[in-house]
């Protein structure tokens, strides 16, 4: 087994944003046939979302991302999840990544709770066998009993979140990516969920978390990356960078 790690080397990402004209096949065709090459730039804007972002994370690292809205936190998260590919620069990842951006994604309303445990697990990169092993533990955590044999469309919103949360936190990945902390269900459940989440976070080798809550970042992270306009403004020990970031925000 190679060591769990994540290495970004001068990652740049720019992407086009198309206006309605840029997305029209007819317009593009007319532009080509009328020799309208000059106008083509006007059809879309290019956004430089990330600019030369470099850092290395090794097993045990807990990285927090801070920055204003639109600073590139979510974009960076998606690069780490290997959803967006860098336009320039490179990213190397060793380990199973799990991205918890939307925990209810991939739940099938017509299927039962048990069926959803399997399918959601498969999407997380686990095997059906592994999910069967984890099922009793998920059953116990959700406290939903026989409801798990019912189609999940019969669930209340709270139950749905509870099940989704129990599934995605059942097995810790090597690398965990979280965009804001996930909350689940009613108050009594929140406490239980909090404990499970903390345990889950501790079990994963690497954590990357974006959050607007500096408290949460201080609690979970040992390193912080401050992004501004897609560039690394500062990177270092959590407490230090968060202090810097808070000072900058207050002045």
């Amino acid at each position, binding site marked *: 087994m190679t060591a769990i790690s994540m290495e970004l080397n001068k990652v740049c990402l720019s*992407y*086009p944003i198309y206006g309605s004209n840029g*997305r*029209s*096949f007819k317009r593009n065709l007319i532009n080509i046939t009328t020799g309208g090459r000059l106008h083509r730039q006007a059809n879309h804007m290019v956004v430089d979302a990330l600019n030369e972002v470099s850092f290395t994370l090794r097993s045990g690292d807990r990285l927090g991302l801070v920055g204003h809205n639109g600073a590139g936190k979510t974009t960076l998260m998606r690069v780490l999840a290997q959803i967006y590919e860098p336009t320039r620069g490179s990213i190397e990842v060793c380990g199973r*990544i799990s991205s918890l951006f939307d925990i209810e*994604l991939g739940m099938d309303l017509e299927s039962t709770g048990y069926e959803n445990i399997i*399918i959601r697990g498969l999407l997380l990169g686990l095997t059906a066998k592994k999910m069967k092993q984890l099922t009793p533990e998920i059953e116990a955590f959700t406290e939903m009993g026989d409801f798990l044999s019912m189609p999940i469309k019969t669930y209340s919103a709270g139950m749905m979140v509870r099940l989704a949360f129990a599934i995605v936190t059942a097995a810790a990945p090597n690398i965990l990516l979280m965009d804001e902390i996930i909350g689940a269900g009613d108050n009594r459940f929140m406490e239980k969920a909090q404990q499970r989440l903390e345990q889950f976070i501790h079990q994963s080798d690497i954590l990357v978390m974006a959050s607007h809550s500096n408290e949460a970042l201080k609690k979970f992270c040992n390193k912080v990356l401050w992004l501004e306009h897609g560039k690394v403004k500062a990177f270092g020990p959590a407490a230090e960078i968060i202090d810097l970031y808070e000072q900058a925000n207050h002045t």
Partner: protein
Amino acid sequence: MNNHQAARKDIVDAVKGWPIWSYMSVLEMRQRYRRSTIGPWWITVSMAVFIAAMSVIYSRLFHQDMATYVPFFTVGILFWTFMSACVNDAVDAFKHSAGYIKQMKLPYFFYLFKHIYRQILFLMHNFVVYILVAVYFQLPILHWTLLLFIPGFLLFLMNLTWVTLLVGLLGIRFRDIVQVVASCVQITFFISPITWMPKLVGENSLIVKLNPVSYLLEVVRAPLLGHVPSLQSWLVLLIMAVLGSLFTFWVFSRYRARIPFWVD
């Protein structure tokens, strides 16, 4: 990893993920027919009614006897329905999965396979109509020629796969492609030998010879009706499959990284 390697890895990973996408296809199909007792068999029933009605009218219109016309039309329309649904909904293969594409790393071919497999499931349901027709009209199919269906269908699928991917990619990049494709598919239906037999326009007519769909239909239809498809059909499709796949692979490896931005 360069673009070609990444694209190849995408395909390999997607093939390995077959238990997931095949299962998801079944779920999606079930979802569409929830709350109806016979479920997806509805499409079989409506297909049977459609074929029965059209057969009566067209066999009169073209002065064909029922025993030859009904099986011909049945097989043609079954595979046409499959093919046109794949291509018409190709854009949805990616667009409906935008949530997944933007949230987790799955190979893009995963969505393509899921989409095509779901249409294959519908085809399999509709296939019951063919079996009924074959039994009723006592088609001479229990013969080695039926085995030719297997390579024929594989060729058919290979071509359908690249066309679907290409249309899907174009469709998420250019929003108005959907309408263009829909009109093209509709016109293709009328100019392809589905409702009319090729001999009616003359076997060597250009509308048959230059129409790729007529070859696609020929290789699956002939074995199911107890004939041997022409060697020419297989050759044409083989060449189309190779050239089309190469071109689509090139497009895919070049623009693959843009997909998560295009599905917005």
